[in-house]
């Protein structure tokens, strides 16, 4: 078996192995109001560093001063890393403002465009 044949064999085996592994649950943006961007300010309760999406959970206040839990959905970890996000970029207790597209069905979920920290530092959540 020469080197090229060996490489070909390895590539085929790698394909068989890779295609037999569990995949991922990336979903479409159809559930979000992509035409409008709004913002929610609150305190981070949890940052979930996971695929297919990372999530920021914050506690915000509604118009009447009641606590409301919001979820910010981010891209995949690979894409976030490409715009300098790390697993400790956001921490519980951080005061942040989330900008993004709200869920069409009224749930307190938003697809994030960017976040802004209390210091004014901005961090994009989208890879252009």
């Amino acid at each position, binding site marked *: 078996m020469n080197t090229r044949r060996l490489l070909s064999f390895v590539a085929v085996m790698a*394909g068989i192995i890779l295609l037999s592994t569990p995949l991922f649950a990336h979903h479409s943006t159809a*559930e979000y109001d992509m035409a409008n961007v709004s913002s929610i300010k609150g305190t981070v309760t949890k940052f979930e560093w996971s695929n297919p999406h990372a999530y920021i959970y914050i506690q915000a206040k509604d118009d009447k001063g009641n606590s409301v839990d919001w979820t910010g959905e981010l891209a995949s970890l*690979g894409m976030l890393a490409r715009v300098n996000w790390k697993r400790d970029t956001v921490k519980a207790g951080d005061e942040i403002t989330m900008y993004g597209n709200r869920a069409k069905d009224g749930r307190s979920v938003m697809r994030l465009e960017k976040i802004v920290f209390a210091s004014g530092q901005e961090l994009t959540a989208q890879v252009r």
Partner: protein
Amino acid sequence: MRRNWPKAWATAGAAVLIFLPAMFAQTAKPAKSPAAPDITGVWIIDQFHPALFPKGTTPPLTPWGEAQFKKADTLVNDPNLACLPEGIPRIMAVPLPMQFFQVPDMVLIYIEAGNQLRQIHLNRGHRDDVGPTYNGDSIGKWDGDTLVVDTTGFNEVTWLDHVGLPHSDQLHVVERIRRVDHDTLVDDFTIEDPKAYTKPWSSSQTYHLKPGWEIAEYVCDNNKYIYHTDK
């Protein structure tokens, strides 16, 4: 005159030894044919379009196709929510990078979405001993500067796009992949599926080159949704 056989054999042996590397070099298949354009590199779609068909319209669905499309709910029964593969052509429309490799007899596409490796076999016909599968059996050939990829052998689990266009196990996808300039790759594809569509239809995806990008790990470890096949 009597021949000096040992000397003759020695000369012949030396000639074989001298030309051996050249003989092997000629029999070894090149990584790609000299005429094959270079489409290697990391590419990502230009713009994410959840629907493959023009906005607000659908392709010519058969009654069966129409019924399947009505059942599609992106929040409930998108097969992708259950970490299942996207299948073809949807995988080529996911907003994550893909790395193209050209190796002997194959074009390989290492797709960040789920870290899938798509195989396009260049020097064989369709196999009849595999399938139905999520990604089907892809064979390809170069037509000038265009890689023509023919895929059949699908199951009926996947959607064609992110909004739920259906297909059956009769799906036949033909892709024409071409590097239109250094930074741009285009995949024009035609969908043929007599069970789901009354006639073939076409769409297209455009990708741009991402020099310096590497494919990242992508393990589906956080399913937020529940997949209900009965809805």
